[in-house]
């Protein structure tokens, strides 16, 4: 038997084995299905079926108070959504503008803090790691209410601090209006968001710790600068986590709701700048009780988020590096 024939025979034998599982492999497979089976049941019952139901709802005139009196209205909700409701486009614009500001700032901040917290030169590293992660454990609504106090123009700490540090008279009703001034509202909301980026920091930190130190050492010996090591080693090596954070942050921003809802009941104040898309969905569905139209709003969000996420995945092959990946 020549060498090629031997390899072909070996591969054929491998393929034959994959068709017929051993008893141990069967047992393992059964356990595997048992474990994911529970999740699948949950996925079907709490995600897939409600999603399918909401798609059906989007073709109904469905009043939440009287679901039994629903009527089929065809594409009426979709027509209203796409051609008649200016708030849809306003809320989408608000959401994307905020995402364009908040996403890069949040991503860079989380990475920057992770690099700092990973530094061997940082004194009290564990303490700082705990402190930066701690806000994540504060209930979101409580955190937002605390922020509304901190940002109060007359009595909030931030304006008091600025006044104390600069001497500028900003701690009064006419001072810096963090939550009332349309020009700075997205920066304010981003600031509130950054307070809770503990999870993103944690992911980045874990990724940074997974980069083999030999790579840095070899680069150092070759004379690579700190910036070069960052660009050529660290960023590529942690790019899967950056990608993961990017996708999660983007999807999270598409569903941005709690901060504007808690702070102003979701009425868009100031000047409509906080009328996010999910606020529009929530008001239509659960405040105005128009669940049919609300379902159409939700589905449009799903389609947009899916398209953008798919685009992000398509770009991933150009900049995300998976060690050991077979192409």
């Amino acid at each position, binding site marked *: 038997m020549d060498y090629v024939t031997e390899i072909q025979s070996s591969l054929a034998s491998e393929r034959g084995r994959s068709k017929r599982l051993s008893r141990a492999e069967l047992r393992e497979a059964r356990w595997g299905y048992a474990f994911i089976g529970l999740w699948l049941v949950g996925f079907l019952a709490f995600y897939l079926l409600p999603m399918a139901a909401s798609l059906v709802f989007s073709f109904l005139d469905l009043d939440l108070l009287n679901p039994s009196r629903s009527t089929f209205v065809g594409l009426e909700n979709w027509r209203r959504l796409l051609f008649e409701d200016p708030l849809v486009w306003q809320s989408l614009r608000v959401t994307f503008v905020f995402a364009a500001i908040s996403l890069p700032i949040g991503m860079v901040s989380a990475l920057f803090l992770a690099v700092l917290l990973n530094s061997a030169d940082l004194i009290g590293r564990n303490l700082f790691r705990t402190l930066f992660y701690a806000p994540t454990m504060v209930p979101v609504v409580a955190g937002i209410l605390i922020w509304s*106090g901190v940002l109060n123009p007359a009595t*909030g700490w931030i304006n008091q601090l600025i006044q104390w540090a600069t001497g500028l*008279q900003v701690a009064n009703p006419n001072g810096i209006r963090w939550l*009332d001034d349309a020009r700075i509202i997205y920066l304010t909301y981003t600031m509130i968001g950054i307070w809770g980026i503990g999870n993103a920091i944690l992911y980045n930190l874990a990724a940074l710790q997974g980069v083999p130190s030999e790579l840095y050492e070899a680069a150092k010996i070759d004379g690579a600068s700190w910036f070069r090591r960052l660009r050529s080693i660290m960023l590529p090596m942690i790019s899967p986590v950056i990608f993961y954070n990017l996708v999660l942050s983007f999807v999270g921003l598409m569903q941005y709701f709690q901060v504007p809802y808690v702070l102003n*009941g979701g009425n*868009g104040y100031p000047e409509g700048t906080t009328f996010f898309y999910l606020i529009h969905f929530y008001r239509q569905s*659960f*405040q105005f009780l128009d669940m049919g139209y609300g379902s159409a709003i939700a589905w449009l969000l799903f389609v947009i988020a899916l398209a953008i996420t798919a685009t992000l995945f398509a770009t991933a092959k150009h900049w995300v590096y998976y060690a050991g990946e077979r192409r």
Partner: protein
Amino acid sequence: MRKLTAALVLLTVLAMASAQTEIRWFVGLGAGSDEPQFEAQQAIVDAYNASQNDIRLVLEIVENTQANDILATQIAAGNAPDIVGPVGIRGRSNFPGAWRDLSDLIAAADYDLSDFDPALVDFYKMEGQGQIGLPFAVFPSFITYNKTLFDEAGAAYPPSSYGDPYVSADGEVLPWNLDTLRDLAMFLTVDANGNDATMDAFDPNAVIQWGFMVQMTDLRGALTLFGPGNFVDADGNAVIPEHWATGAQWIHDAMWKDYFWPNGPYAASDLITWSPFQSGNLAMAQTHLWYQTCCMFDLQDEWGVAPMPAAFDGSITAKLHADTFVITEASRNPEAAFDVLTYLLSPEIAPQLTTIYGGMPARLSLQGDYLEGMFAQAWPNRDVDIAVIADSLLYPDSPNHEEGMPANRQAQDLYIAFDQRLQNTPAFDVAGELEALRAELQLLFDSAR
């Protein structure tokens, strides 16, 4: 054998429990969602459950600001409670069609309505919906003032009965109206340097005490200070009543020019807190009777009550809250729910509940010296002018400030947003913005026709 006996007992108890009809009582749309009231309500539920074996009453209390959304979601999910209450006019208006017509249940039980004012019974008869509730409690409003702050400022107290003038510390006799209220409120507004709002040296950027506000209400509630009204006329068109337009300007001036009414930034600060009068930094507030039993027990200062001042046209309005209990249309056990409802409204239980919620019972037989008893229990050793509170019932707002409108929730959203801008914008074109609000409301009302 012991284990067998225990199992049998357990099974028997479980069987008895499952044989009971469960009735869920939802609290949150009106009074009752403040923590000090929880225990007393639960005690009433426990007493009911102990009194019979057919029905098991379950109390569900939710936070007032979230109650609308939670109830809507429960109804939508087919998980509606059986009884909702106490619920005010706004709460009822927000759920058109969600409440059951009680007429057949009243007739079937031959329920005696003779102890209620017939006009009040009719108050709960809604067009197209029937008799959705029975009278339970009313909550008149009046001025509550901080005597300690008045004494510190050397100001004379407001009059102690309707029709009396205001006699200043100098002995000047003035009509008790909005002009007098404004002057007095400015005198009681103080900055960090001790200057009051009538002085040239007063610093509006450092206010620490305010003179007056209509608290814990929305724009319609605040504007009722100038007379009753609504944003919709009899033909279903959007309107801004003239006296409300004047009132909106007066309120904006009070916040940003005269400084005696906490503006947006101050109202959201820890100087005022969620319960403004209780902060001890507010000299006068228009409050409803429920406030005295829910939200001012932390106030150490001396306080009193006074009549509402006359508006610019000389009329007096003391806006009124009226609460009831309703049965949801979706209730699977309306008969059992009606049994519970009549228990809650009974002459034995109603006064206990009204004491918890701080309301005057709607039952005529219970009104007598009810207020004296309530205040003796809630505020022993306080000399409260009960007559002012009772007399405030003579000046109710009609139409009520919580009256429904077409597309009620959306309409509320529009004027709440207007109010937020009014409170937070120093340079606010009140007249122009009101016209814009009217136009927006008109569009909404047209689309809801």
